[in-house]
């Protein structure tokens, strides 16, 4: 290994950039391990916190001894006062509700609100969106890249033009349309507006341009229809590009807060993870940072794992190295 000054500076800048990007994630994961007190005092207790046991107030509240229970116990210990028995029972409950902050945070994440349901909704929505996007984008991209027809260049310029339209600009008309057909508060409202991805069409078209024409002609000579060429020849060769597109699409819609917030107004069962996070926000008791950070960690983990698994092919797809 030899380091030139230029290389060293380059890497220093990259490392600095990486630190800036990682910092919020570090804080998120670290807070998800810590108790409320540690977070609020900002005590320096390292990444994992002190893991000093805390008493789960909600658990205690739920387990408070009932009057009947106190009376029943009192009969067994006639020498004690009612007050004493109550305190003994309460101590018992408190002992059971004592746990390390990391368990408290992650347990709360799943019990405060139906987080699993939100995650499932997220999966249903993002997977449906991606599949339909592929079903629409591949034939469109194939036509734009490989077929000769009147108005093709114009159609492609329309695709480019649509890339320029910001989502928020058309959100209101979209919402009105969905409301008129009575689709608000349904999965359809979450999925339909995103099924035609001009970005997907554009990306796949650029990739298909690099596929040799001979391959398509070979398919035609072998007796394939244009649609079987798309699914049996173009799709398998386009896997790297599709993976890149999958990451863009899934990340965008998994993390989307804006659109679900617009079309899902009351139905809690349809909340996607980012909307679901609102359930954990501050109320009069103050904000429970630990559980919120635990929820955030749970929500981002699937994406990070997926990226790690597909990383190599994803980068292949981005660079569109084509095929040889």
């Amino acid at each position, binding site marked *: 290994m030899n380091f030139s000054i230029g290389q060293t500076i380059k890497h220093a800048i990259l490392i600095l950039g990486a630190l800036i990007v990682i910092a919020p994630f570090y804080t998120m994961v670290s807070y998800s391990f810590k108790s409320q007190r540690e977070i609020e005092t900002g005590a320096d207790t390292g990444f994992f916190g002190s893991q000093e046991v805390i008493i789960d107030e909600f658990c205690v509240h739920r387990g408070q001894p009932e009057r009947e229970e106190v009376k029943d116990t009192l009969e067994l210990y006639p020498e004690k006062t009612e007050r004493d028995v109550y305190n003994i029972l309460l101590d018992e409950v408190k002992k059971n509700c004592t746990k390390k902050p990391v368990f408290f945070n992650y347990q709360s994440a799943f019990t405060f609100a139906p987080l699993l349901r939100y995650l499932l909704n997220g999966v249903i929505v993002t997977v449906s969106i991606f599949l339909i996007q592929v079903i629409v984008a591949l034939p469109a991209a194939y036509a734009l890249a490989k077929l000769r027809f009147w108005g093709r260049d114009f159609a492609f310029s329309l695709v480019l033009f649509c890339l320029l339209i910001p989502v928020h600009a058309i959100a209101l008309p979209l919402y009105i349309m969905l409301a008129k057909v009575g689709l608000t508060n349904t999965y359809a409202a979450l999925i339909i507006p995103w099924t035609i991805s001009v970005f997907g069409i554009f990306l796949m078209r650029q990739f298909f341009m690099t596929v040799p024409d*001979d391959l398509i*002609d*070979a*398919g*035609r*000579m072998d007796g394939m229809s244009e649609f079987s060429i798309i699914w049996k*020849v173009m799709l398998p060769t386009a896997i790297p590009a599709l993976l890149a597109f999958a990451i863009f699409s899934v990340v965008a819609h998994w993390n989307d807060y804006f659109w679900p917030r617009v079309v899902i107004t009351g139905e809690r069962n349809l909340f996607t993870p980012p909307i679901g996070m609102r359930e954990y926000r501050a109320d009069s008791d103050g904000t429970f940072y630990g559980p919120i950070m635990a929820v955030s960690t749970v929500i981002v983990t699937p994406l990070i794992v997926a990226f790690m698994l597909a990383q190599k092919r994803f980068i292949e797809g981005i660079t569109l190295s084509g095929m040889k």
Partner: protein
Amino acid sequence: MSGIFLKKINKSFGNTLVLNNVDLEIYEGEFLTLVGPSGCGKSTLLRILAGLESSDSGEVFIGGADMTKVKPADRNLAMVFQSYALYPHLTVSENMLTPLKLRHLSTLERFPLIGPFISREKRNELTERVRKTAKILKLESFLKRKPGQLSGGQRQRAALGRAMVRNPVGFLMDEPLSNLDAALRVHMRSELSELHKALGSTFVYVTHDQAEALTMSNRLAVMMDGNILQLGKPREIYENPSDIRVAEFIGSPKINIFSCNVIKSNQVEICGFKIQGNFQHFMDKKISIGIRPEHLSLTNDRNCIKGIIKHRENLGSDFFMHVESPNIEKRIILRVSPEEALNLQVDAKVNFNFSQKYALFFNSAGKRVEVFDPNNITNKKIA
């Protein structure tokens, strides 16, 4: 009859005319080569024959039936592409199975999961056919590999296999050897010829390499600017080109062209030497003489054409001398044997000569003209 007949094919891309009223008959079982420089329309003609491109006008007959409007798959022709065009995600055997499956299995039988289940017998039969073809092409040990794991020559064979496996009425080949290295290309030339003899089916071969055209074909069609200039046996085209462009394209190194003046109705002058012949139609016009490098011979006679060697090319078996001669604008190339070449270095002065019967005459439009009495062609040297 089951030959292929292309009738009055016209094709233009935008304003460029690519094929100009081309007629071509390909006999059953022959190896016909379409040869020409790039952009001459040879590939387009092949693609029109394959059905991958539609002609602006004209008709395509295959085996006596009008196939002009028929889909490529239904013409029962197989094509081998320059880039091989193997499906990169499938193994060699799956590649070879693809055309068979599409032809011999119904949609239901091709359906994933249930398809293989209900058509097991048919599938075994098809796999057997693939195995047989692979054996002919010595591909057996590569059947389980993907194209990316094969060398150029093996890919070439796999592509041939995919074409062969379904017994087409004809093979269309679009420069199939041009991606191979030189040694392998020469080897594949003989292999392709042998394959053609063994299969006995029609081969239509497109190339820009005149050596491939001369070595492999039964007949070749020289194309230029959207026209077939000459169609004939390789030897005929080499020895008797009907057009100056054909003469220049076929043969390597290129034929020497001398332009000369007709001075009398029975005489032309070339570098001060006179050739007798019937030139009465060419009075006061330019006429060109073409002589192949191997027909120029060195001589000790000082009265012949003179020149100075400017460059010598050693091909091992032959030497080609590039000679500059006064009064002749282009360098002349002549072939000499290695023995003769020993004492000929650059800047040496040489005299050379040719025998009249090898001189090919072309008129000002580039068309071949006969100037000698066919019954009286002599071996007479010009000087």
